[in-house]
């Protein structure tokens, strides 16, 4: 069952990438997807205890989160752009290290949070250590932003099922 899902996923991606629907290309795709499924299907999902419904739920909630993240990315870029193009001394620049604690439990949740933090206004995750994150922030304003937990709650809702 698991292998069948992987195979169908790979084959769907093959069809999108090749864009050819004649028998030659489809059979090539069948063969290569079959070989990949046989050799390395166990690499794709390490945690298989989650049911198919849970995964589907994650997938459904992902677009909303992505759009919110996209908006944050644009805000962050405007922030950097403004700072880079300030004439003379850059007044807003005030780097600091911030340590935050997270309540996320799964590794993937932490990874998603760390990547989101790196993408949003003026903050980069330096290190994840257990449930603590070390963050470099570029100005006072962004250091304040990273301390409130809006993003963490959003990540928890998408990847760890329900409002924890």
């Amino acid at each position, binding site marked *: 069952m698991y292998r069948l899902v992987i195979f169908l996923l790979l084959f769907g991606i093959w069809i*999108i*990438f090749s*864009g050819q629907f004649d028998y030659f290309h489809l059979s090539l795709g069948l063969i290569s997807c079959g070989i990949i499924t046989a050799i390395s299907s166990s690499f794709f999902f390490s945690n298989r205890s989650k049911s198919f419904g849970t995964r589907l739920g994650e997938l459904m909630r992902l677009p909303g989160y992505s759009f919110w993240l*996209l908006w944050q*990315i*644009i805000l*962050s*870029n405007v922030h*950097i*752009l403004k*700072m*880079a*193009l300030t004439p003379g001394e*850059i007044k807003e*620049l*005030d*780097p*600091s*290290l911030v340590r935050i604690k997270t309540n996320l439990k799964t590794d993937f949740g932490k990874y998603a949070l*760390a*990547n989101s933090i*790196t*993408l949003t206004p*003026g903050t*980069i*995750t*330096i*290190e994840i250590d257990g449930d603590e994150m*070390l963050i*470099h922030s*570029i100005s006072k304003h962004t250091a304040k932003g990273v301390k409130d937990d809006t993003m963490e709650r959003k990540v928890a809702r998408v990847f760890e099922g329900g409002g924890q």
Partner: protein
Amino acid sequence: MIIDTISICLICIGIVFFIGGAVGILRFPDFYTRMHAAGKGDTCSMFLILLGLGLYQLHEPTLANFLVFGKIMFITIFIMVTSPTSTHALIKAGFEEGIKMWTRNGEKKGNVK
């Protein structure tokens, strides 16, 4: 016509963000702040430029063009995942190497573990 205008606008905005990133890399004071400019400018401007190119492709709405649009979107997703990861890898390497951090009041902090 409308699609052309939108895609040209998106590509131009992307280029502006790229310029912001490049200027930031030159002007910011230390390694960490430069990483901010490098890592973020690229992600967003790449996204906007690729989105512009993808929309331009939808000129004639045929299946092949939709597939090309899909492929371009796949590239975008790939960049969105890898770019922050590489930024994080670089900055962590720098941090563990003990590169000093520039701060507002002149003092320089090292590796504060």
